[in-house]
């Protein structure tokens, strides 16, 4: 009896246990998806990566006396393409006191009842008093009358009198100022544009001086942009939520033909645009002149917005455009970029000049490695440039050895042209420092902006940028121009903590001959360094014309060989690091170090 009862209970229990097993079996299969491994931490998209090392720059603007803002006229809400370009920074030692002075273009505004009258705003020249103090000398130098909507500037001793002259570009006007003695003492700039026949009523942006025909006088290449005017001012819708109007893209307009002028003995500029067979195919924004094929003659590389970039090989004064066949007209996907700033440098230690271009959002900034034989290869991916992302709109730029380790780094001023850009781009953008490092046996650029100090973590509308040693301490300083916010002076403080050594060179040709196209080769104890004498470069700006060469920790004296653009070669040996040396053509002994 009890056995039977036990059997009955057993059956019921088995049913319950079986049910439970079945029940929990299904539940487990619902609750436990197959594990897929840990999820990696996600870095932020836009914050600059943290770089190791001491700070390289200190923003010294507020104590220098330089207080100036380039104005675009944006507040008139006309949304013109004119207001997108911004202004440049021109470093010029106008009084030859050994200290670089700063010329800044002023831009313009839109006046009148309909706000369609284009008015220029004053430019400024600040004299460098030393010890990071500057004085506004615009009026006394005769530069207070610049009344057009200005953009950029360039420097050359066009008449070879030994004094640097100043060219100012802008909307439908180009002005050349001769640096002359002021009867009342000091110097004075005199407008000689008309007197020299330098007629250019197009929209000029960047310009480069270089002696293209070997007569010793600097000729002139002028970039022109597009055919915009208030008579050709279409409405361009914003295309973003709440944005009714945006500035039109350059593709809405026709590119203007660039200009080339022969300098005839410093007495006249003759328009040779037709002679050079230039065509209206590029919206020109940046130009650099240097000897790019080692034939001693300066060639010209032009950065065009939304059109093919151009490379003019100098065939004895005839400029032959070969951008496409040389591999520098397009990016590595075969498309043109929206190019702005340009420069030339030997980033890979090959002794050959490679080309560097800052571009628009969605493009990679382009590094074209010089392979020799007039062939270049787009190397932005291979060299780490692409890791920066494509959300920047780069303008002023340049190769610069930030830490004097002997390898040229890169600096970029960024800022969008659209107030409401698409994707992750912002209107104001931080400037960028990229360090040239060794990685797996090749050169690789790494974003070290966090070592630039707070300025490099601040979003601005960066445009012009000039590189130069403003305090002659042997460490390259930077001057940034911004649209509608003040110019910034960044003092390089690398020398305070770095053991790296440097050498400064101030080269002079006989009879103040134009040096653009010359090449400088430095032989230190353990390495060779090559630098190129350039005209133009960056964006709307003009750099220090002296050569500042980082030697790393290489000890001992160095020898310098200059391959002059006119063919002669000279060597100076036994130069000590830590000083600027004056090397004059034909003088076998280097001048005393410049203090």
């Amino acid at each position, binding site marked *: 009896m009890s056995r039977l009862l036990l059997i009955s209970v057993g059956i019921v229990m088995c049913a319950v246990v079986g049910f439970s097993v079945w029940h929990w079996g299904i539940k487990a299969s619902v609750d436990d*998806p197959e594990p897929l491994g840990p999820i990696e931490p996600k870095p932020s*998209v836009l914050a600059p990566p943290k770089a190791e090392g001491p700070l390289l720059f200190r923003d010294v603007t507020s104590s220098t006396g330089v207080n100036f803002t380039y104005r675009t006229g944006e507040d008139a809400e006309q949304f013109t393409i004119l207001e997108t370009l911004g202004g440049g920074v021109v470093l010029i030692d106008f009084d030859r006191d050994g200290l670089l002075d700063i010329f800044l273009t002023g831009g313009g505004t839109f006046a009148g009842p309909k706000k369609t009258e284009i008015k220029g705003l004053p430019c400024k020249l600040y004299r460098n008093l030393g010890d990071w103090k500057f004085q506004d000398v615009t009026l006394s130098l005769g530069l207070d009358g610049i009344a057009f909507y200005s953009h950029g500037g360039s420097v050359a001793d066009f008449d070879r009198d030994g004094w640097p002259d100043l060219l100012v570009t802008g909307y439908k006007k180009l002005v050349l100022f001769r640096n002359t003695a002021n009867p009342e003492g000091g110097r004075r700039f005199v407008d000689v544009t008309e007197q020299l026949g330098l007629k250019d009523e197009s929209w000029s942006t960047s310009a480069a001086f270089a002696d293209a025909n070997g007569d010793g006088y600097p000729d002139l290449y002028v970039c022109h942009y597009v055919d915009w005017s208030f008579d050709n001012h279409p409405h361009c819708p914003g295309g973003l939520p709440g944005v009714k109007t945006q500035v039109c893209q350059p593709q809405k307009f026709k590119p203007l033909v660039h200009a080339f002028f022969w300098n005839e003995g410093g007495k006249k500029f003759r328009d040779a645009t037709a002679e050079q067979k230039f065509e209206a195919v590029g919206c020109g924004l940046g130009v650099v002149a240097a000897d790019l094929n080692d034939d001693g003659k300066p060639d010209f590389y032009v950065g065009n917005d939304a059109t093919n970039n151009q490379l003019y090989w100098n065939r004895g004064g005839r400029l032959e455009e070969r951008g496409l066949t040389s591999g520098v007209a397009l990016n590595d996907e075969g498309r043109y970029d929206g190019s702005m700033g340009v420069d030339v440098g030997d980033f890979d230690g090959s002794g050959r000049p490679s080309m560097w271009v800052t571009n628009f959002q969605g493009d990679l900034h382009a590094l074209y490695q010089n392979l020799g034989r007039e*062939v270049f290869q787009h190397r932005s*991916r291979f*060299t780490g440039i692409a*890791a920066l992302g494509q959300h920047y709109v780069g303008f002023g730029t340049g190769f610069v050895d930030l830490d004097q380790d002997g390898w040229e780094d890169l600096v970029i001023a960024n800022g969008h042209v659209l107030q409401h850009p698409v994707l*992750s781009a912002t209107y104001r953008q931080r400037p960028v420092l990229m360090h040239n490092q060794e990685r797996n046996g090749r050169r690789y650029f790494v974003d070290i902006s966090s070592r630039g100090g707070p300025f490099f973590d601040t979003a601005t509308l960066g445009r012009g940028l000039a590189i130069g040693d403003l305090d002659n301490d042997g460490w390259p300083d930077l001057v940034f121009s911004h649209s509608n916010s003040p110019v910034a002076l960044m003092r390089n403080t690398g020398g305070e903590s770095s053991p790296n050594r440097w050498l400064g060179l101030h080269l002079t040709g006989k009879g103040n001959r134009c040096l653009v196209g010359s090449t400088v080769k430095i032989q230190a104890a353990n390495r060779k360094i090559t630098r190129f004498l350039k005209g133009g470069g960056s964006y709307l700006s003009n750099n220090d014309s002296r050569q500042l060469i980082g030697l790393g920790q290489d000890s001992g004296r160095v020898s310098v060989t200059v391959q002059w653009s006119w063919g002669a070669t000279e060597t100076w040996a036994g130069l000590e690091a830590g000083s600027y040396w004056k090397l004059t053509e034909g003088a076998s002994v280097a001048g005393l170090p410049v203090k």
Partner: protein
Amino acid sequence: MNMLTRKRVLLGIASILAIGLIVLFVLLGNAQGDRLLTEARSAVEQREFEMALNILDPLVNSNTGDTEALLLAAQTARRANAYARAAKFLRSYEQNGGAREEVRNEERRAKAQTGDKEAAEELMRDCEQEPGAPSNFLSLEAIVQGLVPFLDSIVAAGGRASEGPELQWILGALDALLMVPMGTADRAEALYCSGKIHHIASRHSRGVGELRQALELAPHHFEARRALALAIAQASPAEARIHLEILAQQRPGDGPTLYSLALVHRALGDTADAGKIMDELLLARPEDVQYLVERALIELDAGRPIESEALLRRAANHAPNNREVLLALSKALRIQNRPAEADQFLKRCVELDAQSKRKMESIKPKSK
């Protein structure tokens, strides 16, 4: 105990056992039905729709009158895009006395989910009239799901969603969906949809933010991670690489993921890693022009123009007028110091550009 008494006792025990078993089976049957429904709901909550349907199928087959199970099965099948199956369940639900209103709503949801704008607008109006209704989630989800293919087609065409009332309506639906209470998996899915659509609709920051939130809730959400990787690739290729590597682990051998990963490796200068991936992809599709070109560009980056040329010539056999192939071939030949051959390919490319330009100009509307 005599025989008769013994027989009676045994009969009694047998009767008790039989009744007990019957009661047990009835109880088990009901419990199993409840359990299955609970399990199905749990699977649905985790958006494991196929699993839920596998649970619901035997339940509705054994108890055809269970309208609750039938409605859940219909909704689940629709959410799994199994529309025929959903319709079958819904018919059965209706035949067994299911609420007519539910049938109508579910039919409209199916239409909205397949892109029927009228049905979507009707559902939206209902949601607006009764904002707190528990069924709003299902309706809004169906509306949003129906929008995704439309927006995908815009992206596939290389465009972006243009501003206007239509887009505002879409974004309104997304906002309404995100306001409704829902489980974690549903929220992750809703954030993924919203993030993707906001990205397409030029609301990049919000889009990326929502995709990140979706991944926080559901780290294994493949599509959300892929959408995030693609959305940030331009600004942050290094972070995009991290996401693509995770995706490649999740779905080994997934062609589009591996190809995107190879591109981002090359963008970061890691030609060796990029090359390995492309080799793997080319094993599966050895004559794929896109793959051949990418592999060739990697060789070019790595300083091997001869190998690059060989790959490009293979690509050119399949696509003799492909601009990218011609340009890359021209580059590879020029680097090898073969300018005459390089010029031929460049010339062909320039001719193609000119043809394309002429074609574009011919289809432009003529101004008076």
